[in-house]
């Protein structure tokens, strides 16, 4: 099996490229990276690709099929080479081994199938009751995204700003500081808890998450059972030295029985390179020496039991959604979903909450939700008009979305996508209450859905034309009124509408011979 020693370094190189790539994506604070970078990296993510394919079938969204084929060919390559959360766990384990802590010697452990398959079953069953809620919380890519967006990006911005500030004291303005990410305690603590949970699972038993909680790991694990190539041990040459067992981060090599649980093997190939007598390696499945398979009956029983249990409990968790509200009151208006998400319903059906869109939004108008969309819509993007407003020409979030929750929009399509409508409360307006000029709202309005009309004493006051409003929130962001709240704001369209295009005629250029003064 000597000829297979190249597998591990190749796996590590691909993994590092993917991990670095994903950190690069989440460092793109101003959304300057080309569209293709996002497309290439995210199209190999299983759940996002699957969700996107179901909605927008095509070659570019068929990444999950590739992963399935790869798994059927040679096991869970995805888990060690493409999955950012898997690679992150390897990185944590790598650090752990180089820190002066005592680490437990790895050994074979039984599969925790009574957790793994019920969790998978639960996430599948829950699709019928609460949409992708469970997938949202369990998907490794989405969890990585939330960790990167909430924990890594602030550190990146702070470091960059520190450098910029040091340079600025020397009057060098070559690095421009960025505005720090807005701190929302709940989304932050959710991401932090998940990160700490994963770190502790790694410290406890390496890839424990991948083989007990991760639904993608469970699906690919089932597929691995029919893989063409599998890691196996040549019983004739194996000396049972146990090196492979110690190197196995999935704890799936049983050296006593000289067997490998391929459903848990994450294809890291560490075992191949530590084997002293070249006995372990990838082999065609039918060439394997016969190994007594453990009975699957217990697994099946676990699966069914847990499935029934959770099927009963799930509807209780799904809370009733808030009713329709016509009166556009500021505090009860509900969340606004980003352009391209089509409707709040669509967003909640498709979004896994990876927060890539939030991380790259140049104006930072996209911020994570907590309970704005209800219990089933936590950590999704929402328009925070108090933080920023949606740039009229920008389609970045629709370009980067890996799941099709925000479908790709052209600039032209976006300019007629109405995510909400402007509502002006004249009684609160500065021009009305103070009798002084303002016009901040109209100033920022890209379509002049908010425009100024003559008022008393040379003043002008806003008027609105909601038909051409796209709901970008610029007026709301710019409104200086604070008490009790802004005088102009966007009332969400739960289902996005088509905005009319602003009609304009060309102004005439009057040629003058003489100076007018």
């Amino acid at each position, binding site marked *: 099996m000597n000829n297979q020693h190249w597998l591990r370094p190749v796996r590590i190189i691909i993994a590092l490229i993917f991990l670095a790539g994903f950190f690069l994506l989440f460092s793109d604070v*101003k959304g*300057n990276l080309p569209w293709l970078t996002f497309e290439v990296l995210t199209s190999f993510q299983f759940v996002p690709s699957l969700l996107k394919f179901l909605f927008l079938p095509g070659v570019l969204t068929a990444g999950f099929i590739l992963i399935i084929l790869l798994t059927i060919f040679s096991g869970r390559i995805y888990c060690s080479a493409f999955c950012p959360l898997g690679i992150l766990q390897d990185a944590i384990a790598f650090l752990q081994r180089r820190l002066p802590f005592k680490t437990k010697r790895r050994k074979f452990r039984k599969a925790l199938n009574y957790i793994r398959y019920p969790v998978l079953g639960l996430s599948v069953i829950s699709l019928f009751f609460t949409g992708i809620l469970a997938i949202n919380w369990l998907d490794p890519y989405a969890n990585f995204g939330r960790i990167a967006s909430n924990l890594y990006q602030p550190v990146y911005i702070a470091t960059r700003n520190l450098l910029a*500030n040091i340079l*600025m004291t020397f009057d060098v*303005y*070559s690095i*421009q*500081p960025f*505005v720090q990410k807005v701190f929302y305690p709940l989304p932050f603590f959710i991401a932090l808890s998940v990160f700490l949970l994963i770190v502790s699972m790694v410290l406890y038993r390496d890839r424990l998450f991948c083989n007990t909680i991760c639904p993608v790991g469970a699906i690919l694990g089932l597929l691995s059972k029919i893989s063409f190539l599998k890691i196996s041990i040549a019983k004739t040459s194996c000396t049972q030295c146990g090196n492979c067992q110690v190197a196995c981060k999935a704890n799936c090599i049983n050296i006593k029985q000289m067997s490998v649980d391929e459903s848990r093997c994450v294809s890291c190939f560490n075992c191949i390179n530590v084997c002293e007598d070249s006995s372990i390696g990838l082999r065609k499945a039918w060439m394997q020496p016969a190994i007594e398979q453990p009975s699957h009956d217990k697994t099946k029983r676990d699966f069914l039991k847990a499935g029934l249990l959770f099927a009963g409990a799930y509807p209780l968790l799904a809370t009733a959604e808030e009713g329709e509200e016509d009166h556009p009151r500021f505090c009860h208006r509900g969340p606004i979903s980003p352009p391209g998400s089509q409707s709040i319903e669509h967003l909640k059906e498709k979004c896994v909450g990876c927060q890539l869109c939030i991380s790259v939004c*140049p*104006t930072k108008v996209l911020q994570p939700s907590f309970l704005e969309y209800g219990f089933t819509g936590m950590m999704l993007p929402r328009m925070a008009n108090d933080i*920023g407003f949606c*740039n*009229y*020409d*920008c389609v970045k979030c629709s370009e980067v979305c890996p799941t099709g929750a925000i479908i790709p929009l052209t600039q032209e399509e976006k300019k007629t996508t109405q995510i909400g409508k402007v509502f002006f409360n004249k009684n609160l307006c*500065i021009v009305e209450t*103070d009798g*002084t*000029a*303002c*016009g*901040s709202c*109209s*100033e*920022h*309005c*890209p*379509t*002049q859905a908010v*425009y*100024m009309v003559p008022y008393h004493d*040379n003043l*002008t006051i806003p008027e609105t034309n909601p038909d051409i409003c796209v709901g970008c929130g610029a007026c709301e962001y*710019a409104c*200086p*009124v604070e008490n009790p709240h802004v005088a102009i704001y966007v009332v969400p369209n739960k289902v996005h509408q088509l905005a009319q295009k*602003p009609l*304009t*005629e*060309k*102004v*005439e*250029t*009057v040629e003058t011979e003489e*100076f*007018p*003064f």
Partner: protein
Amino acid sequence: MKRRDFIRKSVAASIASGTLFSMGRWDPLLASGNISAKAIDMVAVKNGEPAAMFDAGIAALGGLKSFIKPNQTVVVKPNIGWDAPPERAANTNPELVGRIVKLCLEAGAKKVMVFDNTCDEWTACYKNSGIEKAVKANGGQIVSGKVAGNYHPVEIPNGKILKKASVHELILESDVFINVPVLKNHGGATMSLAMKNLMGIVWDRGYYHANNLHQCIADFVTYRKPDLNIVDGYRVMKRNGPRGVSVDDVATMKYQLISKDIVAIDTAATKIFGIDTERVQHIGMAEEMGMGTTNLDSLNIKRITL
């Protein structure tokens, strides 16, 4: 031999002195004895390209050397408020800004910095306005106007309403401050001109809007008058300002104004636009506070048609 030496030396001397005089800085010294040549208060240029109009206009004022001493630092404040291309005329013309940067450096400036506290997201504004490229190509530096820590509180003792503001450190620290607004319509302030452009050097613009916009604009001028104002009237947004909706809002008028008097230059700009100066209330307020004059007849205006 002596005669030849004499001729040679005298030719060399006359060339040297001619060169010195033509450099411009000596003109005011020599002209000071000449009472009939009254100093020019404002230059108005029309019918040229932005850079060519600036070349002609600033030459009439004795070149930028009359405003910049060697090794001084210069801050240029165009309007870069919006994520819009030059054709939309929401921002100052990039060609003009580039030429100003170039001539500042030629006049001996140590460095030229350009910034604005933008309304739209700043990297998009800098890029799509074409100003970032023009500034860099001409040797200037682009600075973000969106770093709160770069703004420092100042007192405005003569302000009626605006008593304090946070001003960008480049304005506080630079030796020369050149204000380069674009002439355009403005929904709230009626017109966006030289004085209105100064809202882009303070941090909290919301205060202006919430507390009598026109008075605050006028109040700020009492704190800091730019050393030179250049109004870009090449493309003029006639309506839907200050952001504009499309190129349909824009008329190509090919004007440029240069003056130290911020009230006078705004007055002239309203006349080019074709609106009563009184309707732009901050102009009258600033005149009342002694910041300049709206009476253009009292000024020596040099008019140049290219």
